[in-house]
């Protein structure tokens, strides 16, 4: 024994003592579904693309975004951003301006000329897409990526659908639509304009198509019966907005009354104002709270001097004047006539009462089911007729650009599987990273960055874009407000806070691993993970 005085054992490291045996719960890393992602009708991985924007890698962010949605510059302008309504940051201060960052990425892509990759393989299959609105464009993009030959047949003279013939320029400049459509066509998608499909079966046969995706939208303005003298101009909102795209601008007069409470009513009233109407008045039978139009748009309209008669219906239209009846809400919240009348000066009345679908092209197709004027589809977006899929405004939907884009993507996945004789099974969804799963202590105070708005004079007289974009600085700031809900953003907290040094750091981009030899299962890491990417689960035995 040549040990020092009084030493009888060799010194050793405590690594010999595997404290993992103490554990009754074990921490596991997981990815939870961020609420923004869960709420996005286009199924974007918002948290995923914000992650790249946070570090300033905008191209990577744009590529991650366009995995799911090929139209970010459009979405960044017209999407009603249900993601922001779900964003967990609203419980800290206010939601992340996802839409503003999306727009920046979309605009940056146009500015820098970023292109989509060419499809890697060719399937040899041909798919007909009817309608070049957002749903058709989205389907075409995804189908092309799967390697199918895609042809879009569009009745109108331009691509874009309602984004072009409905949504006014001051919200969506046409160059933006053109750039994002062109990028899809550059992938090898064929677009045939002024090509109305009169009968889908004939069109498929003539073009030797293996499958079709229908996305013809809803373009027939709903009418309401208003007793009218001959001299009154009664027009429908969709025609007015559509004619804004042509040579002959609509003649509406000095005093324009718009009938309806949806976004179309708002858009047409704002358009009339810009066309020089002295008075643009919206007449709607319910209240502001009940109006289907988004409140932000009502607000913008009011700022521009649009007037609104809430709780009012049009009873009669005479030359130069209309009669409206006041309504009152009953106990159930429905508007009821009061017998109280009022006269309003009006040169024209624009009806914005919603749209119906023109189903002419489907005549004689067996198996189709039409309910409430829209075509019924299964969970795979296929109609009752095998091989014919449909999406967007012509099927049951909230009728937004984003839903239309989502339908296009979903349909493309199912068409791809169907063409291969298979069925597409969506991967199981992760549990949602609700706010209670987060540890919000760790997030910096960071106020929401507001997008600048055009001055009011120009908003009333020109079609210049009203809402402007963020610059690079505040885009990055806004992106960094993201809490990264449910997905590790490599903050090193778990690695740092473990009293047992039982977390292994694998290096940038590679995340972490638990060392279960020593982890005692205290749960500190899970509690201190800011974003809820660790869960404690009971040990089996």
């Amino acid at each position, binding site marked *: 024994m040549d040990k020092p005085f009084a030493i009888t054992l060799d010194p050793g490291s405590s*690594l010999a003592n595997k404290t993992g045996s103490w554990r009754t719960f074990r921490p596991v890393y997981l990815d939870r579904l961020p609420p923004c992602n869960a709420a996005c009708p286009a199924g974007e991985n918002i948290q995923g693309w914000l992650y790249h924007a946070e570090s300033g890698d905008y191209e990577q962010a744009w590529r991650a975004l366009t995995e799911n949605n090929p139209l970010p510059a459009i979405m960044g302008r017209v999407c009603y951003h249900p993601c922001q309504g779900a964003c967990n940051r609203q419980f800290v201060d206010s939601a992340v301006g996802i839409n503003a960052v999306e727009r920046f990425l979309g605009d940056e892509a146009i500015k820098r000329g970023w292109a989509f990759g060419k499809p890697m393989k060719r399937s040899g299959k041909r798919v007909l897409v009817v309608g070049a609105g957002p749903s058709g464009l989205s389907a075409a993009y995804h189908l092309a990526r799967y390697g199918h030959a895609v042809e879009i047949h569009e009745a109108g003279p331009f691509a874009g659908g309602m984004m072009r013939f409905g949504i006014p320029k001051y919200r969506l400049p046409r160059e933006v639509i053109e750039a994002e459509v062109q990028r899809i066509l550059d992938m090898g998608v064929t677009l045939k304009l002024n090509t109305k499909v009169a009968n889908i079966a004939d069109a498929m046969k003539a073009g030797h198509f293996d499958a079709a995706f229908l996305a013809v939208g809803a373009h027939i303005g709903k009418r309401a019966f208003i007793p009218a003298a001959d001299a009154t101009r009664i027009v429908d909102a969709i025609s007015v907005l559509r004619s804004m795209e042509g040579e002959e601008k609509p003649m509406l007069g000095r005093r324009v009354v718009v009938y309806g409470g949806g976004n179309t009513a708002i858009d047409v009233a704002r358009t009339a104002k810009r066309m020089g109407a002295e008075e643009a008045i919206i007449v709607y039978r319910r209240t502001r709270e009940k109006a289907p139009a988004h409140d932000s748009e009502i607000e913008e309209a009011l700022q521009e001097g649009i007037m609104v008669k809430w709780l009012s219906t049009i009873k009669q239209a005479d030359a130069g004047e209309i009669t409206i009846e006041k309504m009152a809400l009953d106990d159930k919240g429905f508007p009821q006539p009061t017998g109280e009348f009022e006269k309003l000066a009006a040169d024209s009345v624009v009806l914005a009462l919603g749209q119906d679908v023109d189903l002419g092209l489907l005549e004689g197709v067996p198996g189709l089911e039409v309910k409430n004027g829209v075509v019924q589809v299964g969970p795979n977006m296929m109609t009752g007729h095998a091989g014919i899929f449909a999406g967007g405004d012509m099927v049951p939907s909230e009728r937004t650009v984003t839903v239309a884009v989502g339908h296009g993507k979903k349909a493309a996945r199912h068409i791809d599987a169907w063409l291969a004789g298979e069925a597409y099974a969506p991967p199981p969804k992760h549990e949602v990273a609700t706010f209670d799963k987060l540890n919000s202590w760790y997030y910096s105070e960071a106020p929401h960055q507001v997008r600048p708005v055009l001055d009011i004079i120009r908003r009333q007289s020109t079609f210049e874009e009203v809402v402007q974009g963020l610059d690079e600085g505040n885009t990055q700031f806004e992106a960094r407000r993201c809490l990264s809900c449910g997905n590790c953003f490599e903050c090193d907290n778990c690695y740092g806070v473990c009293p*047992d040094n039982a977390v292994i750091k694998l290096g940038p981009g590679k995340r972490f691993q638990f060392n279960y030899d020593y982890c005692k299962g205290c749960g500190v890491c899970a509690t*201190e993970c800011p974003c809820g990417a660790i869960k404690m689960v009971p040990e089996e035995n």
Partner: protein
Amino acid sequence: MSFQPVKFYQTGTFTVGNRLLPPEERSVQAQAKRYNSINSGHRACQGCGEALGARYAIDAAMEAVDGQLICANATGCLEVFSTPYPETSWQVPWIHSLFGNTAAVATGIAAALKVKKQQGEPRNIRVVAQGGDGGTTDIGFGCLSGMFERNDDVLYICYDNGGYMNTGIQRSSATPPAARTATTMAVGAEPGNVFGQGKFVPAIAMAHEIPYVATATVADLRDLEAKVRRAMEIRGARYIHILVPCPLGWGTASNETIRIARLAKETGMFPVFEAEHGEVKSVLAIRHPLPVEEYLKPQKRYAHLFGKTPQVEVIARLQELADRNIRKYGLLDGGER
């Protein structure tokens, strides 16, 4: 202020690391190859604040002096759970002293190193002494005060878990009022530890006018690391007092350790500051002010305050203590008094 927090960048410097910060602004604990001065396999309880605080502090000291460090360690949990002979978790030169004499042992090591330096030792080897609150504020207090008074070149770190935890949770002079321990049971007219006794050693250390005194908690890593780094830049006697929650002694869930430390700071129950030569230089401001109940309620050692008839008067007295800290150190305005 030793620590300049970085705001924005998602989590700024609140988290241990942050991929958005430049590498030189990241913490010692975030490094993939940190020292791990106290390694895995130790026998501390699940979620032990002391084990964590010791790794935070000693790793930061090692980083500051390039690994040229010797530690003297008083008897107490930290020593017992890390070094059951013949095993040890320490990956630094480390000596176990007695319960009460760590400061003196460290003084001796520092003196020996000084002599060696005069004899041509090329390295700058530095000394840290560490112990629990019992070993520091009670039994080791004479040695500690002597070390301060002589301005010996030692950084003394006290890990304050508010009691003699290793021997079964007895009261120390750092046990807060009203807290239940094995020797201050939650029985009688005034259950728990008495008001008006005990001591706050950081203030006593300041009274020695030593070059550097600081307090910290395991909930603010970046602040703690900066204070250790600052302390190692200075020669002479230095003292850092770190609040380290003890799940067993405080009756808290093992996963709550950091949260509880954070609440101690946020409610004002534990003031976090730094002082030079007896003068407070900076405080870590309260971020989201909270009533003391938030801190007390999750701890079983205060459970008797929240029974069928809540002890509102006792809680009010504790709130008064917190309010006094807030006033005294300017905890709501970052120390601008």
